[in-house]
């Protein structure tokens, strides 16, 4: 009997302290041995030898080159096809842009007056929830006009309004097909997993090649980026429809088509609308980043000003993006939660169609207003307010007053924390890493999981970017550890009372809507560029899930068990450490999993402020239009995330089963 099967059996028995330790020890032991013996190992076992690199990049480029240059379908080449398809999106884009901001000069029709846009947004908010949401929506739109961001913001909004429905419909279709055809699901779900863990930039490079650069290409990238979440939530939503409801449809005599359209889809309305919310937010996040391939709008403005280190003006654009994010998120969220309710039988026409009536009133009023005063049509630029001087003053103040402490903090972080950890990471033999991941996979999910995760790591090792990957891994590790150290206490604190939870959830919801790019502004403000700045940006962004999941986990411990603890005479502290924490721990681990995913997304974007990791390489690939390299590097990042994801999910599922918790 091998040592391995022995520990497995021991784990089944009532655990002795020593036996309980054997398993984790067995997982890290090979890793430790290889790490400590690194100097004794032959070179090939420490550094991936140059000759071992598998030319994934060349293969990918061969495919891309073939598609670009040679693939001909009848009359068109593949590139004609993609460019032609891209051309299609220009029509709705031009129409919506015309409506919102540029007007239709050819036929002499002006754009909607800004008061009308603001008013209609207000009516929508009021209809979907209450007058407060209406005021928020109208206020945010008015802000764009009054603070001189009208054109930029409306261009960005146009892309979102065009891209979101297209992405939503495509994702919806993919989701339906996956639910109805098993072979398709088996094909598409792993693909969705990878696509959702690819960094934003990896989407941009192929787009730049097949469609070119420019506003249109940005719109297409936005569409493609937003498809996976919709597909995933469609699958989740349709599968979540109660079997009984489906049976009720069948027993009513529905055909398959009727069951789908009249029973399943309407019953899954809420998860589907949550999907729409996700699509809208992903579109906004992507349209900001798509400015790297030339998408116009607020993102382009922000990028331009950040590159010029004009922090005040960058912040101004950032605030506009944030306001737009909050408005779009709140509106689509309200739509998802809106429930129908019955009307009085004698309801008037106004009560029956309140939205239509209010919209018509707003349109009439704003047209009238626009006829009276040009200020209502377009806010004059000479009257536009600017907050940039205020922000600049703030930045100056920070630079003057906080320069020394910040410099000190930054240097101390670098010298005593970051550089030692980076050196440690870079000294890890690749064989040790593979051994660690494989052992963890074997211990949590047997041979299958071990094969999957070590496959991921081997891909990264042989793709030829091992050292860069280690730097990424080091930054993510440091950031995630700091996130846990800060986020966990915040989560525990916030879970103590209803009121705190409410506040924390609101903050998490709000911060999560911001496109990740936004988080670069404050860190550049404080730390300029470099590793400290990058890690700070990652921490702010990736802290959200750990806080959220900690609160969720702690608050969802079954009330009965907590009461059992109270009646056993636990103090608050004992309740937390002996009851709530152990039961919430699987959920908290899932939060850490999300934090890792968020950190990987951010670390790539942080390449913008001068890191030396994989993100920098992807950035370079973007500059040189090297699609193969971009794709392979993107896969490296995705596989890092998926490795962590597979292991943590396997652990949490097992742990939850052991604790008898659902899910």
């Amino acid at each position, binding site marked *: 009997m091998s040592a391995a099967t022995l520990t497995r059996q021991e784990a089944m028995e009532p655990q002795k302290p020593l036996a309980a330790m054997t398993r984790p020890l067995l997982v890290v032991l090979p890793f430790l041995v290889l790490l400590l013996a690194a100097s004794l190992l032959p070179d090939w076992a420490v550094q991936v030898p140059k000759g071992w690199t598998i030319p994934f990049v060349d293969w990918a480029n061969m495919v891309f080159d073939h598609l670009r240059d040679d693939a001909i379908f009848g009359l068109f080449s593949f590139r004609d096809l993609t460019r032609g398809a891209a051309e299609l999106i220009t029509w709705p884009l031009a129409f919506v842009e015309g409506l919102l901001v540029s007007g239709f000069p050819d036929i002499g029709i002006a754009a909607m007056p800004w008061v009308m846009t603001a008013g209609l947004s207000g009516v929508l908010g009021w209809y979907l929830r209450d007058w407060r949401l209406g005021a928020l929506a109208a206020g945010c739109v008015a802000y764009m006009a009054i603070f001189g961001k009208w054109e930029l913001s409306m261009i960005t909004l146009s892309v979102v309004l065009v891209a979101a429905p297209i992405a939503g419909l495509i994702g919806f279709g993919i989701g339906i097909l996956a639910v109805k055809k098993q072979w398709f699901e088996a094909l598409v779900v792993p693909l969705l997993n990878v696509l959702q863990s690819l960094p934003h930039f990896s989407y941009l490079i192929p787009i730049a090649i097949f469609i070119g650069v420019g506003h249109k290409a940005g719109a297409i990238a936005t569409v493609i980026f937003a498809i996976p979440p919709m597909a995933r939530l469609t699958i989740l939503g349709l599968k979540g429809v*109660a079997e*009984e*409801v489906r*049976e*009720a449809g*069948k*027993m*009513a*005599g*529905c*055909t398959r088509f*009727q069951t789908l359209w*009249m*029973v399943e889809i*309407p*019953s899954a*309305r809420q998860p589907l609308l949550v999907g729409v919310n996700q699509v809208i937010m992903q579109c906004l996040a992507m349209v900001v980043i798509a400015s790297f391939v030339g998408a116009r709008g607020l993102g382009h403005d922000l990028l331009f000003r950040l590159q010029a280190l004009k922090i005040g003006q960058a912040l101004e654009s950032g605030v506009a993006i944030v306001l737009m994010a909050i408005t779009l998120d709140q509106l689509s969220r309200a739509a998802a939660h809106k*429930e*129908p*309710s*019955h*009307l009085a*039988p004698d309801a008037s026409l106004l009560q029956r169609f309140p939205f239509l009536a209010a919209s018509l009133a707003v349109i009439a009023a704003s047209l009238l207003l626009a006829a009276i005063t040009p200020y209502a049509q377009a806010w004059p630029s000479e009257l536009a307010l600017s907050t940039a001087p205020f922000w600049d003053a703030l930045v100056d103040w920070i630079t003057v007053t906080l320069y020394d402490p910040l410099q000190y903090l930054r240097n101390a972080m670098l010298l005593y924390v970051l550089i030692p950890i980076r050196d440690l990471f870079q000294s890890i033999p690749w064989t040790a890493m593979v051994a660690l991941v494989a052992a963890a996979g074997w211990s949590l999910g047997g041979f299958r999981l071990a094969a999957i995760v070590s496959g991921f790591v081997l891909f990264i090792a042989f793709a030829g970017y091992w050292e860069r990957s280690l730097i990424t891994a080091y930054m993510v590790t440091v950031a995630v550890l700091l996130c846990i150290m800060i986020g966990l206490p915040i989560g525990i604190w916030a879970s103590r009372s209803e009121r705190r939870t409410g506040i924390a959830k609101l903050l998490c919801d709000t911060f999560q809507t911001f496109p990740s790019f936004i988080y670069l502004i404050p860190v550049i403000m404080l730390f300029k560029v470099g590793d400290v700045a990058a890690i700070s940006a990652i921490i702010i962004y990736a802290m959200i899930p750990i806080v959220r999941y900690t609160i969720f986990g702690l608050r969802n411990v079954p009330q009965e068990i907590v009461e059992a603890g109270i009646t056993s005479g636990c103090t608050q502290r004992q309740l937390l450490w002996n009851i709530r924490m152990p039961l919430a721990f699987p959920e908290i681990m899932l939060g850490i999993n999300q934090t890792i995913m968020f950190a990987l997304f951010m670390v790539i974007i942080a390449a913008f402020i001068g890191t030396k990791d994989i993100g920098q390489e992807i950035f370079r690939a973007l500059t040189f239009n090297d699609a193969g390299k971009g794709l392979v590097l993107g896969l490296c990042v995705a596989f890092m995330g998926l490795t962590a994801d597979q292991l943590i999910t396997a652990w949490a599922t097992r742990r939850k089963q052991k604790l008898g918790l659902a899910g």
Partner: protein
Amino acid sequence: MSEAKIACRNLWKLYGSDPAGFLRRNHNNPSIETIRAEGYVPAVRNVSFDVMPGEILVVMGLSGSGKSTLLRCLARLIEPTSGEVMFEGRDILAATEHELIDLRRHKMGMVFQHFALLPHRTVLDNVAFPLQVRGTDRQKRERRAREVIELVGLKGREGYYPRELSGGQQQRVGIARSLAVGPDVWFLDEPFSALDPLIRREMQDEFLRLQKVLNKTIVFITHDFDEAIRVADRIAIMKDGVVEQLGTAEELVTCPATPYVAEFTRNVSHDRLLSVRAVMAPASSRKPDAAAVQAQALIASVARQVLTSERPVDVIDDAGALVGTLTRDGLIDALYGKEQCA
């Protein structure tokens, strides 16, 4: 005797990798041990019974006994592994999808445990739904839906959405929906299990009132033996996928076929279940006493008279003819011990 409305013969439903092949290899009758040993999960095992027109057959069992699966096999929501289900003499398992849809649109109605209402439709639209999918025009289907809504006592709530109704009201909508097409056969899958005890009782009364008017052929699933006694003509008790016993409530109580059935029926108060006929002794034909009791009366209602009488009390049928006598000892035996099986 008329033909059975629904008949099932040797019905099997097993879950596992190759249930059909497994059944064939075991000559269509594997033992429970073989089934479990080979990793199959038995849901329905070799079930046969007839449901007569206008009859209420209650299938009773604890959770996991296979009762819901059995019902779904009858409605072919689940494909049985083997066996046959005859619906009005037609083999329902051989029906094409089209025929099946047609059958459900005209002949079958089903009520679900958790109501299974469509959340985005009003009460009226939920009830009209089966008519809508079969293509009835709006005016006609809404007229019919209003009729059924009134029948179940929800008049005035037509414009409400399911979430605005109480559990009892939601199940009334479920009942109305299942009746909208005027089905011959009515399947009820634990219709009142999700309701509070008081509401449950009220709904049982409502159900019996409706059945008196409608006279459907009914298969009613429940895990509550009291409910079964209240509504059933006949009861089938299921355990591990097998029907342990099928008979009237009286038969189950007085002559349980297996220890499992006996365990179930032990705590049923006999006096409110047994009729005089079930416990009387036969008597030779003579002119009955003036103080004779009716044969179909429950023994609870005649207990005082029998127990205070020195002599055996005569029992008469509807026509007034003597059919037997009931003694004190006979009554006491029926209530407190010595069960007698016919």
